[in-house]
Every structure is written in C-alpha cells, then in structure tokens.
C-alpha cells in the first residue's frame, strides 16, 4: 500500500519507497538519510498544518507537509533493520 509520508498518523512507521521530484530537495533528503528502504516514524505533527516531527536512523527531523507529500512510503516494514533505529 503506497502513501505519502504526510498521510501517516503520529506513531505510525513506514518505509521509504521513493522520493518524487528531483533536484536539490531530493539530494538534501538523501544527505539526511532519507533514501529508499529507510524506515521512518512520524512522532508528532504541529497543529494547524504545521511541520511533522519524524524519526529515522535514531535522530529527529522536522519537515514541512509540502516536503512530506513528496516522500512515498509503503506500509510497515518488518525486516530486521532494528539495530539502525534507536528505540529511544
């Protein structure tokens, strides 16, 4: 099931499928570790359409909804990449 990251609810996890659109923004995300296969968790959303707090690779990111809409994720992943995800 494919969704965009922005559609996840707080507490939900999903795996990055691909990043739509190219150029600087995609590269930036790549540099921050958002590459296909990585597991993301939406921690919370700021109210009134504010940014999302996301956890990946054991650290936190804030991202606007516009950017989140470009990240396509697929349902929960059960593969064992647990060690890379701080379960803090």
């Amino acid at each position: 099931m494919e969704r965009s990251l922005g559609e996840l609810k707080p507490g939900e996890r999903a795996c990055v499928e691909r990043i739509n659109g190219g150029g600087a923004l995609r590269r930036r995300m790549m540099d921050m570790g958002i590459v296909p296969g990585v597991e993301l968790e939406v921690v919370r959303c700021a109210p009134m359409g504010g940014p999302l707090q996301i956890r990946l690779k054991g650290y936190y990111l804030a991202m606007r909804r516009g950017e989140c809409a470009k990240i396509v994720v697929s349902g929960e992943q059960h593969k064992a990449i647990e060690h890379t995800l701080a379960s803090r």
Partner: protein
Amino acid sequence: MKIALVGNPNVGKSTVFNALTGSNQQVGNWAGKTVERKAGTIHRDNLEIELVDLPGTYSLTAYTQEEIVTRQYILREKPDVVMAMVDASNIERNLYLVLQILELAPRVVIGLNMMDLAKSSGISLNAAELTKALNVSVVEIVAAKGVGIDKFLAEAVRVGLLKKDPLVRQVPYPSELEEKIQAMENLLKDISWASQYPLRWLALKRLERDPEIGQEWQSVSAPESSKDKKRETCCDSGDALNYKLKNIIELPGNDLLQSYEEEGWTKDHFEMAFADAKYNYISQILPRFLIQEDLRKPSLTDSLDRWILSPIWGYPVMILVLALVFWASFIASAPLGEAVSQGMAWAADFLVSLLQWIQAPAFLTSLVRDGIFAGVGAVLAFVPQIAIFFAFFSFLQDSGYLARAAFLGDRLMQLMGLHGKSFFSLVSSFGCNVPGIMATRTLEDPKDRLITMLLNPLIPCVPRLGVMSAVVAAFFPGTRGAMIMLSLLLISMLLVMISALFMRKVVDQKERSAFVMELPLYHLPTLRNVLWPTWHKTYTFLKRAWTFILAASIVVWLLSSFPQGVPMNSTWAGKMGEWLEFIGKPLGFDWKIMVAIIFGFTAKETTLSTLGILYGVAADASQSIAQAMTGAMSPLRAYTFLVVYMLYIPCLASVVTTYKESGSLRWTAFGIAYNLILSFIIGWIIFHGGQAMGFQ
C-alpha cells in the same frame, strides 16, 4: 600544518575549535551556527598548526552558502589533515559524510563526539572496531567537557606527519556501478590536472557531473582588512576568502557520459546510486561497532518534547519562555541599570569637583560632565540588560530549545511565506543584526535569502532594546513600561510579517520554501557556553562604549558647545538640527531628536548618548537623561520616537553586511529606503493617530 574541522552541523566542531584555540566561535544546540570559515593558530611540539573551523554540512555536494564555504575549503585549500567530527548518538547518518571525506582526503582522523549523549541513549560504541572497519584512527571525545580533545589533536598531528598517505578502506560499489567508475578512472588517470585529487573521487564526481571538476580557482583575499571589520561590528564574522576562476580544463569522458545517459544513467541516477551504496555499506559495518540497547524508558529528550512540542502545551510554554527572557532582561534589570547610573553620577560629580579643585578650565569640566559622562554614562546604564539578555539567550541556544521554537513557529513562518530556517536568522538578530544577516546563508534559495536579509533590520537588537528600555523607563515608569515594551515588540513582529509578504512581491518569490531541519537532543548547557558568550558580548559592548561611543560623545559635545556662549540652538549641532527639523516635524520631533537619530546611524547606542548630551547640556546640571527628557517631551512624542528609533536603519555595520551578503548595491539601497520610509510612515500614523485619539 593545516588542519580542518569538518562534520555534520551541530556535532561540536566549534566547541573543539574554541577549546583548542581559545577563540569565541558561536556555539549552540541547533544546526547551522557557523557560516564562515575561521582560522586559529596553535603551537604543538614545535609545529605551527593552522586549525580551521568550518560550517557544518551534510554532504560535500553543497548547495547552501555555508556548505559551499566548507566544500571550497576542502577542495581548494586542501588541508593536510581533516578532523572529521561525528555525533556518536547519531552515528549512522554522520558516517555518510565521513565516507565522502575519506574518498576525497587521504589523511583523516575521526572524532567520536557526544559520547556522553550516546551512552545515555543506550548506544555503546566500540572505537577500536570502527577503526578496523574503516582503517582510520578514531578518538572518543566529549567536547563539551573537554574530554579527549587533546588526544584528538595529537592524533591528527600524528597522521599529518606520516610519510605516506594511509590506505583507507574503500566503499564497495555494486559491480555494475564499479565498472562505470573504473571506465571513467581509466580515462582520467593520465591527465595531469587530475593528479591533485584522488582518482576515485574524481571519477565519481565526473559521473555526477559536478561542475567544479576541471576548474582551477585562485584565491583573492577579501577586499577589506579584518581589523576593519572588528572595529565596526559587534560580532566577528569570520575569515572570508573569495575565489576567482583561473582556468577551465577540458576533461575527457564526455562521450562516455553521453552513452551512460542514453542507458538511463543520468547525473541524478548516479548520485542516488552512490548514496545508496554508501548507506548500504554503513548499515553493513554498523553492527560491528554499535550496540543499541533496547531502552524501554523514554529518553530525556522524549519526555521533554512531550510537553515542549505538544500541540496544546507547546505554545503556552513558548510564550512563557519568551516572556521570562524579556521580562528578566529589560524590566527586572531596571534596578541594576539604575545602580550603574547612580554610580556614574557619583563618579562624574567626583571628577568634576576634582577638576574644579585643580582649577581646570571650564570647558574641560563641561566636556567631562556634559560630554563624556552624559554620553557614555547613558550607554553604560544598560550593560546589565545586555548581560542578562545574553545569559538567557545563550542558555536557550545551548539547550536545544531554539530548534523547538522553530518547529512550533514554523506555521507562522509559512503564513509569511518564509523559509523555516529564516527563524534562526531572525532570532539571532535580537542579539545583533550582523550575525542575523550572516545566518541567512543557511537558506538554499537566493530569493528566500534576500527576503530574510531585508527583514532582519526590523528586529530590534539588544543595544536598540537597551536604549528603548531606558527611554521607556523614563517616560512610563512601573508596569506601564512593561506594556509599552511589549507593544513595541508586537509592532516589530507585525511589521516583520507584513513586510515579509510585501518583500515576497518585490523580490518576486513564487516558490514555496522547503524546510527540513534536524531537531537535536537536549543538552544541559555548560557553564562555559552560557557565561563565556555573555561575558564576551558584554565586554565588546563595554569596549565600544569607551572607544566608539566615547569618540562620538566628544564630537557631539563639541558640536553642541561651539561656538561658545550662544544659545543651544545656534551651536553647530543646533544648526544641523535646524536643517533636519522639517523631516522630524510631521512626527513631532524637535531638532535634538533629529540629531540623535542621525548619529544613531553609526551605532544605535549613539542615539542615547547623543540625547544624553543634548538634553544634559541644555539642563546645565548633572541630572539623568530621564529627567531631562521627560521635561522636554510628551509621552506620545516619546512613543513615536521609540517606534521610529526601533525601525529606521539598524546601523552602519548591518548595512555593510547586507551589502556584502547580498552582493547588490541596489538591494542594499532598497533595504535602507524601505526602513526609512516605513519608520517614517508608522511614526506619522502613531503620532497623528495618537493625537486624534486624545493622547498627548
């Protein structure tokens, strides 16, 4: 030996730099504080080491201004050793940059910083295993506590003195990619230009079509001497270096690139594939040196964020924090300021009686009392405010709260059409507009950058706030003062919002800005990180008071005392004011205020010292400016003055910085004109609106 500190943003590079060189680079817990390179010299074992602190970057494919500074330094200055700093609590992403560095620079030492944070979040790292995995020396450090820093440097020096470049383990690329890389390597290996960089790195970059490959650059030293900068600004802006394109070399491989592109291997595809390979490699080697305990209990950051970032509680907490900072620095500090004023008055009286006792000429007595003490004294009275403000500010910066405030405030920034990182620039401007303008370098889009740059002057910096609170305290004593101060801050915020929308139109920005920002873990700020910047800021301010403000005070005193024996408004200052009066008239300003405003162009505190002198001289007795001014102005006029003072051009230094950062005379002039016209219009509305509503 040239050693460079490189790493992701916010990993503690400047902390290490400060510890090793005794400098005062800005340190704080959010990404993107350092925006310009800064060099310092260290002597170790008969070696002179030039250590360079660089802006943090997530990768060596740079796009924002401050990342470009780092990239250019590594590529064009070729440091002998790179001290690659890594955040141990976030090692997986950090290693991505390290792998890039290893491909480019042969001599690297890894500093595993924040070992304390890693431990408290249940991560245990085995440095020896990491060394083995990458074949690079690794030093564990806790920079904030000074642990391991010396060892880190010693290790870097050792690697720098090695006879031969150490062999680093290479990132394994999938075979399909490896073939392509090798094909490119074969084409490049005989080119003499290529010998200055590692072949593999060059081939990768050529496949990514990096524009800099094949270019030769020459450094041209920055036009203005660094001494100059230090005098005029209250903040050190680093050691900028400019480059000029010298030569472009035609490299082979265009046909190869062409044929790859036809197979679908575009520049983007290559970039993605290389990044993928690196991340894969990292997750392969990670289990060898990292053990993640499965901690059930949430970390400190999690528990704090539950409140601080809460959709419901987040905003009340933020308002409370801001209120506390401004209340403590500009209202609760009043008795301290008063005490300084008292002290200055006593000192003045003492000196004057001393001068009279030795029968010094009258003009000298007047210079001391009405010039120096009235002027410099007025400015010194808000030293406590500056100190308190910076103590709070540094605490917030170093704790990690600022990034949270940016998260919560981002909705508002979006409404204004601003980039999320503009928040940091605007907040820095409360300290001083110069670093605020410099901080716009972290914005990718040049138009976003320009908009934020032009908005910065509307944020009142601490010296401005200090002057304002001094005037407020004189005219509106008690709780009324707090309300007036609050209203002024609200006016400034409102104008920032309206101006942001206006600037978007003017600059013709249609893009919706992106915002991807790291939320760092909270730290307990160290005493050094709070007290040292506080002291430094206060000290620079004091220094300016006894150099620049002193000189300005003497000039103003001269202008307002000569020709001697004539009434005040026929002195030179009076004449000058007379010409300017027509501008001030619609706002209800008399000539003294106009003169003070003009002098405020040089540095904003000068306005207060000038007012002190002009009103003090008129009163012909040593009374506080508060008393002198309240006698001469109605509260409405004072309020109008406060608003205009807050909004018109910040100061010379900020104008110069805007010019340097925007590189455009036109936009700088536009910014000045905008501020002047805006302040005039708002002042007019307040003055006449207030009169119509029956205020005086």
